């Protein structure tokens, strides 16, 4: 009886624990002073937030970053094991001044300024730029003007389109009645929406710092340090620059591989064609770079990672075999042509601009057909004919596809042992 009760209690406890997890009970929230940032991560602006539990802020040195000190509700989300901010419930700006200290000396005192983010290719297009002060307000005005103009043009377009529809009906009517209809009415052109986007003007502390370790703190209008705003600020930079490659194998063009470090060897299955897409890349400390955009994530301070920046332009690739140059490759546009008929398959073809002036390429890359044997070295050359540092990669075709020999040879030590054993026995 007692045992049955125990089992029931255990089951109830088990269900309670798991129901909490499954149904996601609302986590408790508490008011906290936090830092909300917009930091340059080398490619774009990331928006990390630093709850009170984190005492170190990571930013990229020599780039302007946006700092805001806010009061918000913070809760712990056990599923992703991180603190989250409930900005919708509370989002209050705190403080008047932001101070940066090097040791005990104040090296910067910053006031809030107007800022906007300008997205030249639209919100998802990348290439984000930060504007502050008068330039920010001008950029916003430019965007507002462009959108106003667009909506006016849309309005005009709909009017013209109605007009066009009427004219078209009249045109067909006349044709049906056998009367001269004249020229077919021309459809009005649809207006183009602005391709760029500018955020609303906001206020925050915007500044850049050289590489170093600092202390950051916010002060209120009376000049008093706001409790909970004192944090360590690490401004870091990259260790090395180089060229990283996205490699598209001809047989699986939708599954590119990356070769980011010079120590990476590219193995190719016998002979085959590889398409190289070079990127400018910077090498960062893994811990610092991970903390930059996701302050609550982990990272190793003894590990370094390459981060792809923009596509490398105005370069060519040289291929060497045993120190002699065997090929110089230039970037070309390619398109993927599906094999006609029901059979699956495709061919990657060079896009001839003369033949198809309006066609768009599926990708642009440097093509290299790897011979079936040998070792090859690829290096990127800049406009001045100089080898770009950390751009070299080795390419090796795998020359065997039959692993039987490898397995058979693995018993060689045993054979050696048996021979030695027999020789010793015979010798005795």
């Amino acid at each position, binding site marked *: 009886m007692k045992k049955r009760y125990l089992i029931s209690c255990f089951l109830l406890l088990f269900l309670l624990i*798991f129901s909490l997890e499954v149904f996601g009970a609302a986590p408790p929230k508490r008011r906290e002073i936090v830092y909300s940032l917009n930091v340059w991560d080398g490619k774009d602006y990331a928006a990390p937030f630093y709850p009170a539990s984190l005492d170190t802020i990571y930013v990229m040195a020599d780039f302007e970053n946006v700092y805001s000190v806010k009061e918000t509700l913070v809760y712990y989300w056990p599923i*992703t094991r991180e603190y989250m901010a409930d900005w919708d419930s509370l989002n209050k700006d705190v403080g008047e001044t932001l101070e940066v200290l090097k040791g005990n000396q104040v090296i910067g005192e910053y006031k809030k300024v107007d800022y906007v983010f300008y997205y030249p290719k639209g919100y998802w297009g990348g290439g984000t730029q930060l504007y502050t002060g008068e330039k920010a307000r001008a950029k916003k005005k430019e965007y507002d003007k462009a959108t106003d103009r667009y909506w006016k043009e849309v309005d005009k377009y709909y009017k013209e389109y109605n007009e066009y529809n009427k004219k078209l009906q009249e045109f067909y009517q006349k044709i049906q009645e056998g009367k001269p209809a004249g020229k077919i009415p021309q459809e009005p052109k649809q207006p183009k929406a602005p391709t760029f986007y500018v955020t609303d003007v906001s206020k925050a502390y915007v500044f850049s710092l050289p590489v170093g370790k600092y202390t950051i703190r916010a002060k209120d209008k009376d000049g008093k340090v706001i409790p909970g705003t004192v944090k360590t600020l690490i401004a870091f930079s990259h260790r090395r620059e180089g060229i990283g490659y996205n490699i598209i194998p001809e047989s699986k063009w939708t599954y590119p591989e990356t070769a980011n470090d010079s120590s990476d060897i590219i*193995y190719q299955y016998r002979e085959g064609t590889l398409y190289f897409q070079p990127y400018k890349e910077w090498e960062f400390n893994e811990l610092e770079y991970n903390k930059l955009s996701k302050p609550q994530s982990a990272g190793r301070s003894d590990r370094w990672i390459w981060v792809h920046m923009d596509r490398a332009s105005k370069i060519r690739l040289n291929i060497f075999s045993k120190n002699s140059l065997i090929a110089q490759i230039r970037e070309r546009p390619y398109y993927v042509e599906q094999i006609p008929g029901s059979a699956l398959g495709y061919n990657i073809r060079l896009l001839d601009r003369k033949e198809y002036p309006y066609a768009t390429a599926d990708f642009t890359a440097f093509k290299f057909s790897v011979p079936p*044997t040998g070792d090859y070295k690829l290096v990127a050359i800049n406009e001045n004919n100089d080898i770009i540092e950390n751009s070299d990669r080795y390419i090796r075709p*795998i020359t065997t596809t039959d*692993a039987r020999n*490898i397995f058979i040879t693995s018993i060689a030590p045993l054979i050696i042992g048996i021979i030695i054993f027999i020789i010793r026995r015979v010798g005795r």
Partner: protein
Amino acid sequence: MSYRWVAIKSIIKREARSSFFGLGLYIASTIACFVSAFIFNSYINTVEGNNIMVMASPLNTPLFYAVIVAALYTAISSSTALSREKDKGTLEVLFYGPVDHLSVILAKFFEDIISFLIIMILVTLYFVYTAIVTNLGFSISYLYAFILSIFIAGSMSSFGLWLSSLTARIRTSVLLLIVIMGGLLGLQFLHNYILTLKPENLSLSMVYIMGILSNVLRVIRWASPFSYLMNGINAVALGSTSMYIENMLGAFAYTIVLLTLSVYTLKWKGVRKL
């Protein structure tokens, strides 16, 4: 030359000769090569399947498994070294000559390192063959990993010697080694496996288990020779010089501590069969 050194040299010579003409060393080398063959096979399959594979040092992973096998052989060999001689009564006889506890421990230790080196040389010859046949190629990191593996073998051997100095029977030594090594290695692999899981996919109970495991591993990090092995391999893979040197020095210090402990344990437990 001191009498101690002469004694050490004589014991090493006798033991190394016995190992060299025995089959154990070659069986261990074959297992190490056979396990590595599976990794090489997986590389070939990957390249064949994806048409491309990008890797910095492809020989390091098979080397890692080969080192595990070779180091395990070293640990087993050293764990039985003293208990076997105690069991047979030969250790007691040895002590009637100009032999002391330190010279026995050092001789057994160096003999294990020689055996380990023979295994690793055979494994390297096999790797050279495979690298040529497949065109995988060698990188400098192989040399770093090889050098580090000697220090790892040192820590494994000293650990085995300490266990051996505790017991007077071969069976007990081997059983103790299997239980302790199995436990340590199991914990290490389990922790490594859990680290590969995404936090959002972990259940609450797994999060707790992971927390407990992390704390347990923090403690055994300094006590397990496998920690030095895994961290050493990580250091080579990451190309972290500081981590590499830290591990080398850690393994060296661990070896010194365990060898000293073995000497005192042997003195305490005695050389006679109980």
